[in-house]
């Protein structure tokens, strides 16, 4: 049975199952969420109002045995940026939604009363139930109760208290195969879910399966695809050190934003590095390798235990560790892990919130390096929704405005992540031009600027950076539509067998005959759809700019500034 669109109207508490319109049929994941948001959400609407819609979509290959295909896309108009947004997460829900025959779940409208609700998705459709028990709870307490109430196999998509309070950095968390959480972190989509008064969504596919048109061809393609991933040395390093292997290399390059983006190297880099983390995990009986969804062959996640050898956090990522660490000058990995756990529990973006605290440190709210102070602010202010907590929960831009700080590292009001655009210029182009505010995953030029993957391009030179970012942003939009983890890109950039195998998987799954050009054109059309939404929402090319402090404050050790002109940046859209 072909997958359908499941629609939930929270205004009149009705649900429906619809055929997939022809224009949406070739889309999945980000391509589908952005296509639906562009088609159905008025671009000028208030992101937390009745006219915004929250869309979940599994990827084109999610729910099949294809390796690394379990990523979930969540889309809406973002309350943080005001742009279109797709936030991407691991966990089990993408695969389970696909097995329910649900191509996309659209949540629209808004209840007129102040009750909370849960949604239950099965192959028969969606049911809406009033919820009280887990409302007001952090994610981990809520999950414990839901694990007793629901069968263990069910998927759960949930918001924490940040989402309930409609904080603009609230995330949406997704249960992983071990019962821990992964998050669609960026852009405040948890606040959109909170505005719909939906605390959680359970997903039970029962005996549902995803149909594959040509299973023999699919198996052959999947074997070649998985082999290309497993054989790539970056995959092997990711399984050993996690993404946090980047601390030392980005620090060495002079592009590790430190002390609220005033330096490019952090004296405490070794203490928070992937190498140190790996050794601590082994000493404390944690797990170096861990997968965020079934079928992942890279396993970049891990189980990090505390000093008493008890579970503290998983999915302990470079960008979170950078933000809580170097950007706030905290060099204690256990304090950073505690903060990561608290952020997951509150249900708030670890990048945005930590960068916001870095700006608050500059404002004198607390001292740089004050790890205990940071933990106190998370538990006593953000989790409880005090005035200060809500300012920090509104993101780095809100903190800058509230305290009159001018060094505020945001683009389209979204915090710049772990790579300084002055010293790694390709990332600056991605931050400036991304359809979703500053976001490293939109076009990860680090591969070529720093890591020597997919060629190499001098990170301090402007030469070739616009073209590099454009090509990567197009490819990323396409990968985000397949349900594939973005980390397949390292193999795709270097191994000539990887992308053809991925295209063979799509063709075998759907009985179609896509070519490489079709995939590139898909990526281009997704970017153009997203860009058109933003223009209609009131954005112009003047919004595709970095904050001006990057142009006037040289970044040590290279003492470089951001030196792209507006005209040069605008050539990004020449395709």
């Amino acid at each position, binding site marked *: 049975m072909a997958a359908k669109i499941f629609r939930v109207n929270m205004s009149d508490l009705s649900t429906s199952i619809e055929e997939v319109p022809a224009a949406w049929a070739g889309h999945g994941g980000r391509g589908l969420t952005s296509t639906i948001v562009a088609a159905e959400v008025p671009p000028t609407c208030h992101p937390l109002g009745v006219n915004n819609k929250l869309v979940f979509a599994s990827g084109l290959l999610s729910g099949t045995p294809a390796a690394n295909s379990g990523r979930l896309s969540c889309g809406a108009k973002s309350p943080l940026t005001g742009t279109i947004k797709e936030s991407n997460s691991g966990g089990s829900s993408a695969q389970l939604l696909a097995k329910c025959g649900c191509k996309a779940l659209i949540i629209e409208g808004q209840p007129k009363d102040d009750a909370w609700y849960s949604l239950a998705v099965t192959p028969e459709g969606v049911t809406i139930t009033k919820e009280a028990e887990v409302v007001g709870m952090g994610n981990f307490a809520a999950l414990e109760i839901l694990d007793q109430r629901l069968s263990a196999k069910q998927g759960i998509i949930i918001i924490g208290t940040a989402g309930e309070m409609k904080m603009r950095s609230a995330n949406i968390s997704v249960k992983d195969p071990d019962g821990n959480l992964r998050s669609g972190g960026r852009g405040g989509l948890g606040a959109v879910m909170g505005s719909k008064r939906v605390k959680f969504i359970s997903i039970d596919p029962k005996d549902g399966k995803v149909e594959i048109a040509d299973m023999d061809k699919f198996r052959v393609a999947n074997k070649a695809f998985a082999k290309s991933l497993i054989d790539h*040395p*970056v995959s092997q390093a990711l399984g050993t050190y996690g993404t946090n292997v*980047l601390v030392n290399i980005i620090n060495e390059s002079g592009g590790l934003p430190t002390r609220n983006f005033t330096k490019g*190297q952090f004296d405490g880099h070794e203490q928070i590095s992937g*190498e140190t983390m790996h050794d601590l995990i082994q000493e404390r009986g944690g797990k170096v390798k861990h997968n965020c969804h079934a079928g992942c062959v890279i396993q970049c996640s891990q189980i990090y235990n505390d000093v008493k050898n008890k579970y503290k956090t998983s999915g302990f990522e470079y960008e979170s560790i950078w933000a809580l660490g170097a950007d706030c000058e905290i060099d204690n990995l256990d304090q950073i892990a505690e903060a990561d756990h608290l952020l997951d529990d509150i249900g708030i973006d670890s990048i945005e919130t930590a960068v916001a605290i870095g700006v608050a440190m500059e404002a004198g709210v607390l001292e740089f390096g004050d790890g205990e102070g940071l933990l106190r602010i998370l538990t006593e202010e953000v989790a409880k929704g005090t005035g200060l907590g809500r300012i920090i929960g509104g993101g780095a831009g809100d903190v800058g405005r509230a305290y009159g700080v001018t060094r505020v590292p945001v683009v389209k009001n979204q915090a710049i992540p772990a790579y300084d655009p002055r010293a790694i210029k390709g990332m600056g182009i991605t931050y400036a031009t991304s359809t979703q505010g500053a976001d490293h995953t939109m076009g990860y030029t680090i591969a070529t600027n720093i890591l020597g993957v997919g060629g190499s391009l001098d990170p301090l030179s402007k030469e070739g950076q616009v073209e590099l970012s454009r090509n990567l942003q197009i490819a990323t939009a396409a990968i985000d539509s397949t349900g594939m983890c973005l*980390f397949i890109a390292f193999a795709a950039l270097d191994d000539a067998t990887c992308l053809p195998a991925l295209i063979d998987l799509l063709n075998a799954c759907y009985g179609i005959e896509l070519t490489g050009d079709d995939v590139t054109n898909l990526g281009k059309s997704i970017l153009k759809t997203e860009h058109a939404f933003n223009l209609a929402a009131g954005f112009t090319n003047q919004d595709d700019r970095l904050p001006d402090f990057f142009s006037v404050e040289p970044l040590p050790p290279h003492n470089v500034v951001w030196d792209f002109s507006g005209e040069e940046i605008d050539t990004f859209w020449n395709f």
Partner: protein
Amino acid sequence: MKVTVKLFAFFRAGRFKVEEREYPEPTAVSEVIEGLGINLDEIGITMINSRHCQFETLLKEGDNLAIFPVIGGG
């Protein structure tokens, strides 16, 4: 000449994190790597004083040489 050599990820196993070492002039980056028992095809990138360099680049007194295997993240 004195050169500070920094190793990362699994290159540290059985070797060191950072060491000030003595080399004759001229010494190329590749000679330092091979002298540590590391195969050139295991190398991801190398940097001298925080700038990418080539295997044939010659070292100078006081240089910092960082040697990374093929790694990635994001």
